[in-house]
């Protein structure tokens, strides 16, 4: 019995470490230690469980070979893939790890269902099934999100009557789960629910466009948290419950914060078609087609050299082109010549919130040079040059002026207000929302076509030659 109490104490400590760790993760100075603290809490909880856990019948944990073998394999695979992944591929990596957690929860439920006896209360069965359903949805959804971000899956699919289909699917999963729990437990039916849940996860993510993927990953992240919490209920395990619910609620809040940043509701992201593209793309471009002015690296070097203030607007294209180091070099040269350089960070630039910050931090851009949207939006009017690198939708003036546009109402960076806007872009192709950008036709806009890294390298070379 005393051993059981020691384990409770360890779980308590683990839970506190999780909470404090999460709190520390939300401040730039304490974040890294917070991550360590949470990892320490996890290690404690895992070791405590292995060596001290006893089930209801008082049996200790066995099968050490299997357990340590599994942990060893998972550690090596997880460690290597986390260390090797490129910064640009970070979002899909997080999605993949999230999917693993979801699958883990689903597997636990599958095994536990086999341990049921005739007198297991229905609510316990419901707990098991809930873990299975949520875990499976999180797993298959995360894998689809991974495939989309990794560009294995390039198209956005939308079945006819998609919304009705998903609602029917959701309702049948719910109905079958209740039917199964209250007196009709059968393994066959459980696997039907399992399969339907996997299908639901796929159908849930498939129609959602790449621009909304951050929201989806965050939502699935909180799903896995909830699945873990159901495991906590099942095993009367406090640390699983606190850890899972903590992530469930924090993840939900984060999801809502992201939706707010795009001025859209969660239901709109899930059931809306934005990013699915196509339908509205044509009618949005009602502006009188001006001409697009293409420019050269030397012209742009001159413009920047004689500017007083330059604001860089980075987007996903910067990450794809791996141009984070060369943009920092450009910034350093300009600063040396007395030009004030800032980075304007749109909350949803890139494929995850904070994606740009992480990327630019990699190339040692100072933390205080990255300015958030609300703070910098008034400064564009007094800025000489805005340099848009691989961003598109977040500077599209249609969001302010054109009610027909699918992104109408989304807060944008007012880059168009600057004296000159330079847009580095590979081609005239539309951004992730799949809509045309009238900014490119504005009289104060110059296009710098080509790979961002190449283009900026050329601008830097021109600047160096201008002494």
């Amino acid at each position, binding site marked *: 019995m005393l051993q059981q109490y020691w384990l409770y104490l360890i779980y308590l400590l683990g839970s506190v470490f999780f909470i404090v760790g999460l709190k520390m993760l939300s401040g730039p100075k304490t974040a890294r230690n917070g991550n360590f603290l949470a990892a320490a809490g996890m290690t404690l909880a895992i070791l405590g469980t292995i060596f001290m856990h006893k089930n209801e019948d008082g049996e200790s944990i066995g099968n050490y070979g*299997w357990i340590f073998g599994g942990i060893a394999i*998972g550690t090596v*695979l997880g460690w290597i893939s986390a260390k090797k992944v490129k910064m640009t591929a970070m979002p899909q*990596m997080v999605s993949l790890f999230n999917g693993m957690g979801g699958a883990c929860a689903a597997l636990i439920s599958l095994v536990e269902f086999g341990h049921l006896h005739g007198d297991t209360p229905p609510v316990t069965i419901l707990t098991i099934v809930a873990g299975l359903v949520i875990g499976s949805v999180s797993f298959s959804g995360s894998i689809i999100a991974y495939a989309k971000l990794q560009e294995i899956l390039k198209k956005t699919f939308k079945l006819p009557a998609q919304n009705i289909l998903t609602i029917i699917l959701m309702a049948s999963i719910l109905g079958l789960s209740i039917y199964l729990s209250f007196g009709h437990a059968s393994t066959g039916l459980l696997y039907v629910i399992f399969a339907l849940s996997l299908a639901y996860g796929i159908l849930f993510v498939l129609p959602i466009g790449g621009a909304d993927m951050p929201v989806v990953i965050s939502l699935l992240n909180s799903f896995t948290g909830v699945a873990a919490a159901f495991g906590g209920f099942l095993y009367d395990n406090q640390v699983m419950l606190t850890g899972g619910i*903590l992530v469930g609620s924090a993840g939900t809040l984060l999801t809502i914060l992201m939706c707010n940043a795009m001025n859209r509701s969660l239901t709109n992201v899930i059931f809306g078609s934005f990013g699915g593209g196509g339908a509205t793309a044509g009618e949005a471009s009602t502006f009188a087609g001006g001409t697009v002015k293409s420019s050269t690296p030397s012209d742009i070097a001159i413009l920047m050299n004689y500017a007083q203030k330059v604001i860089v607007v980075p987007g996903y294209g910067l990450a794809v082109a791996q141009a984070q180091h060369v943009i920092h070099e450009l910034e350093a040269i300009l600063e040396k010549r007395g030009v004030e350089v800032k980075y304007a960070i749109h909350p949803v630039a890139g494929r995850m919130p904070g994606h740009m910050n992480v990327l630019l931090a990699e190339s040692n851009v100072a933390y205080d040079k990255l300015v958030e949207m609300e703070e910098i939006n008034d400064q564009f009017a007094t800025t000489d040059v805005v340099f848009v690198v691989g961003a598109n939708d977040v500077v599209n003036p249609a969001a302010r002026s054109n009610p027909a546009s699918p992104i109408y109402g989304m807060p944008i960076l007012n880059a168009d207000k600057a004296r000159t806007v330079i847009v580095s872009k590979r081609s005239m192709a539309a951004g992730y929302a799949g809509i045309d950008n009238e900014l490119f036709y504005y009289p104060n806009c110059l296009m710098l076509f080509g790979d961002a890294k190449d283009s900026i390298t050329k601008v830097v070379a021109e600047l160096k030659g201008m002494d």
Partner: protein
Amino acid sequence: MDSIITFIGENIQLIYILILSIFVGIEVISKVPSALHTPLMSGANAIHGVVIIGAIIVMGHAEAGNWPALILGFLAVILGTLNVVGGFVVTDRMLEMFKKKK
């Protein structure tokens, strides 16, 4: 209905933890700057890897001859560990970069 009330009654402490944890989760991250959203999401992702505990319990109590349970449990342990280790290491890599510059 009775069984639901019984469940709540028997698990009232867990339900308290559940409700309080919801508020703690919301409170704890409510002031996060958007620059830290990605590492925070990644850190939270690692924390829900706590589901590994369930996997260890399942694995640890699987009977010797019950191959489906052994194999599914083993897979669950691997996947849970991947979630935990990968999650924390990726988060640390992101945060490492925040620290270097100054």
